[in-house]
């Protein structure tokens, strides 16, 4: 029942001082599926991802990866267990070159030729990055930065991919391309993807299941197309 890469969040409560950001949240993401987490600003979406990757400690509840409790593990251990978290906007280390940023994604247990090969794969996927591989990452545009962090996350060969607002600042054409790519990867490699998005419409279009957060609680959880068809929910929480 519990696959290696099943991600399960159980009764997770996270507080920042007096503010309760997550209040008894239950979320389950399965391999080979894209699970969308939707909701307005401040609903707790980013906190959910940060709690999963260990950047924020939940006050209560647990995070299970393939049945194993990871809620007390350090960030780097969670990353090494196969969870790649692409934080919103600021995942690029601007002082390093594009290629150095990418190399950071693939430092764990691979030979040099293997790494070279995977790196070339990313450059093929994002030719814009290949042109700028020797430049400092600070010179990249917003869209190129998104490509960089997503490419870097894929390089580590993750089992679970946490994406925080990947469409932010990207042209609609690129978003479509990116989501298509994501869908292919999931279908091909059986990746588990947790996709946080404000752009609910396009997220639900590629997702299998969806969770809607509001003020730190899960207010709806269902198959993506069921959620997309629920007019009341769409008007109340999803804004389309």
């Amino acid at each position, binding site marked *: 029942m519990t696959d290696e890469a099943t991600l399960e969040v159980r009764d997770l409560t996270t507080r920042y001082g007096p503010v309760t950001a997550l209040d008894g949240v239950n979320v389950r993401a399965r391999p080979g599926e894209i699970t969308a987490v939707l909701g307005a600003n401040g609903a707790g979406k980013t906190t959910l991802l940060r709690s999963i990757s*260990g*950047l*924020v*400690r939940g006050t209560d509840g647990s995070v299970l990866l393939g049945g194993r409790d990871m809620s007390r593990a350090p960030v780097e251990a969670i990353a090494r267990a196969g969870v790649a978290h692409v934080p919103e906007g600021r995942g690029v280390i601007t002082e390093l070159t594009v290629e150095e940023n990418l190399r950071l994604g693939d430092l764990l247990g691979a030979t040099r030729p293997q790494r070279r090969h995977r790196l070339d794969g990313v450059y093929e996927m994002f030719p814009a990055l290949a042109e700028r591989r020797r430049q400092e990452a600070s010179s990249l545009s917003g869209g190129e930065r998104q490509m960089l962090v997503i490419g870097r996350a894929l390089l580590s060969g993750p089992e679970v991919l946490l994406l925080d607002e990947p469409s932010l600042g990207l042209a609609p054409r690129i978003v479509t391309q990116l989501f298509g790519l994501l869908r292919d990867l999931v279908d091909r490699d059986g990746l588990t993807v947790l996709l946080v998005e404000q752009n609910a419409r396009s997220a639900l279009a590629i997702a299998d299941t969806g969770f809607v957060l509001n003020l730190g609680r899960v207010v709806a959880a269902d198959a993506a197309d069921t959620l997309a068809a629920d007019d009341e929910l769409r008007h109340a929480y999803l804004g389309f």
Partner: protein
Amino acid sequence: MSAPTAAARRFLPSSVFGRNLLTVLVALVAVVLVLELTSPFRNSQLATMSYYAIAAVGLTVLTGLNGQISLGHGALMAVGAYTTGLLLENEAMPFPVAMLAAMVVTAVAGIVVGAAAARLHGPYLAGATLALAVGVPGIAIYFDGLLGGEQGLRISSPTPPDWFADAMYFLTAGEMTSARYLAYIGWGTLLLVVLLLANLIAGRYGRIWRAVRDDEIAAELAGVRLGRMRVLAFVVSAACAGLAGAVLAMVVRLAAPSGFTIVLSLALLTAVVVGGLGSLGGALLGSALLVFLPPAVTDIGTDLGMSGVQAAQLAPFVYGVVLVVVMLAAPGGVMGIVRRLRHAGRRARGRGGPSRPAAGKQGVGATDQGGRG
């Protein structure tokens, strides 16, 4: 003074100044008693403590209230000491005038240093004042004709005037030795300085300094001129260091470069950190430590079979270790611990007094130690 009963409060003066004055007067009586009842050796130890304490209360205002660190206070004390030495040569003037002059000269030096330091913070300020501490003794060596070079300036200490000796004899039936007289000068100065600083801290400037320390931007938005307030804090602090230097010169009877090394500055820092940054009482406590700890640890060292030279190094070793340990274990110092105990006690008794906000982001007492989770 945590919870004086209403009856007791009626007898206390209502103004802050009045209360501070009363405290100082009580302290003065205690000082007279202690100085008269102790040996000349203890008298001279207490005289030493007085100049450490004068410098430390000044430093605690700067670092604890205003959030600026200074490793240059040893150098500022040197300015005060050399000024006093030059002015007291051939008994050119009465010593209170020389002390006042030393204070003014050092305060002027404080304006210069403070103006440069006002734009710096944390490590930059520490580095710049460290350079001051290491560099200033060079001046004395460069102008060796005037300042005596490595040997330093011999200083003629004031002798107790007959009227003072007679008055004290009449009061206490004790002999007025030179050590005792110098201790009186030191402690008299110290009490005066503490009285003035206590009022300054409780007043408008104290509030502004704390506001700047806790949140620079908010203070600036509220119309505080940051640079000016910082320089002012530095000047007040430097004036104290100058007075401390003057007392030191008279007590030690010598102003020499070797007396004002970086270790002096770090000892002062130890005193204010151990006592609890920003607290005058803490600074006094820390100064007592600087005086009474070294002989104690030196004795332990000799008992353990160390040579004199080795045992003498135990004191700075302990200062250093204490600085590290206090920062790691109790960044609020002794006063921070007392405050916490008192707070806990009050809460245990179910009265729940107003909680004291932790020191600001630059403050040492801040409870939030960050670190990685």
